[in-house]
């Protein structure tokens, strides 16, 4: 049987599980293609 402490650490690991964003390639220096600009609220606001 899994010891209680191990089980709760495993649960905690599950809660913090890295996702695909965490695994993505780092880009420290962001070359901005253009300046921020207020655009229509109907445009998608997530890349």
């Amino acid at each position, binding site marked *: 049987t899994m010891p209680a402490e191990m089980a709760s*650490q495993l649960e905690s690991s*599950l809660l913090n599980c890295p996702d695909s964003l965490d695994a993505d390639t780092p880009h420290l220096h962001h070359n901005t293609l253009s300046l921020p600009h207020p655009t229509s609220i109907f445009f998608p606001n997530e890349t």
Partner: protein
Amino acid sequence: TNQERMFLVFTEWVKLLQRVPGDDVKVTVFIRQMIDKGVLNTTDNMIQFTKAALELSVGSFKESDPTSEVFIATDAFSKLIVNLLVLQDFAGMNRSEYLRLMISVITMVFSEDQGRMGNSFNERPYFRLISSLLCEWENISGHNFVKIQDQYYRSQLNEFTPEFYNIIASFLHVYQPIAFPGFSFAWITLISHRMFLPKMLRLPEKAGWSKLVLLFTDLLKFMAQYTKKNDVPDAVSVVYKGALRVFLAVANDSPDFLVENHYELLNHLPHVYMQLRNVILSAIPKDLAIPNPYDPNLRIDGVESCQDAPNVFYDPVQDLKSLKKPVDNYLRIPSTSLLRVISTNVFKQEFQKDNGIGYDTVSVDTKLINAIVLHVGVEAALEKHKTTANAIFNTKSSYYTLLASLLNDGTAEVRFHVVQAIANQLRYPNAHTQWFNYVLKNFFLEDWDADTAEIQEIIIRTLLERIVTNKPHCWGIIVTFTDLLKSPECSILTLPFVMDIPEVEMIIKNL
């Protein structure tokens, strides 16, 4: 203090990377200045700097607004490690030792953090560190380090690359779930990382395979330890789902890895994971066309690929221990005394708990039995290649009689595990599948006196359990079971132990 100066240098590095692209000349200049000014000129300084950089990275992650960029320092640290590996002239310490030292320090800090924080430990910055390290290495090493102008350094780095991945793999082995359960999900994500797993699978000369098998067995051992039959903790169930997807991806991309390492993988796979077992055993070498196993006119002896024996990456002879000599001697010159030695030495010292379908303990050394069975199969295929098929497709050959005597002299438990080990070799059409198909069919039809029914039932059970699962099903299992169903010498449906169980009778009738 020295530590404060280390913090300062690292902070400057982080800021620099946000202002210029990673391949800007100023980055190289910074590294050169670090080296020239002796920031890392001693082992002690290296240790202190690594600790400082990691503590800053993890600290900055913990303190950052979760919706912002939380990994800036961590990513910068990864980039620093790769730059140090690539830009330095390694005279005193070699690259491997250098990398091992840094990762050892990281491991210590990781372990301390985990110990201190307990359930509040957050695996993400450590995950990110290794993930980014892999990405950065990939970035610099593309096309055999073509970004490095100097030919000498380029070839040095190319030589180092398998070592790089194997060092990462060694440390992942240290971080395995049984040791650090609070890192389990990050760990599984790392061993299947797109910049790690395919690289390890495809290193020249299979240089990454040993460590990969080690990591997969770490995963399987963890699952085996904590999978109870009817009460699987939710988190373990999630682990299983992830493992299944990873194995399916490996079966797609590199089936040869599963084909050649099935023996070691199955040694640690819990018996209750019947579908996963089938996934591993159903792997077929790329570009091999196999005939339809349900074709009523199929004859296994006519299948061309049965001429070829599958590669076995890890030689099971290493696991025979004290039985190596008796087994090899018997295969050359059969004798009943050798058989007795073998049959009496397949047991464990003590009972062990196990999660089987229908059993809770195991007193037989299943790893040893698996080794004996596979070793005999390997030797039989070699014999066929050296001499003729008649040498092994022969119930009087020592290859056959060795396995037959294990059945004859064994308890039901021994018989069961021997038959299971044989069934594990009934895979895609190859020389092992063909020979073990012959062996199992003959075992089924042979006269074992009072034990005939028991042995037949064990064989039917073993084959059936691999067919009633959801797909995939192994080609060799389907073909063998079909052969038994079609056999004019014995009608399975008339066997008492089949007729006794209507559900089983129904399934067999349908098949």
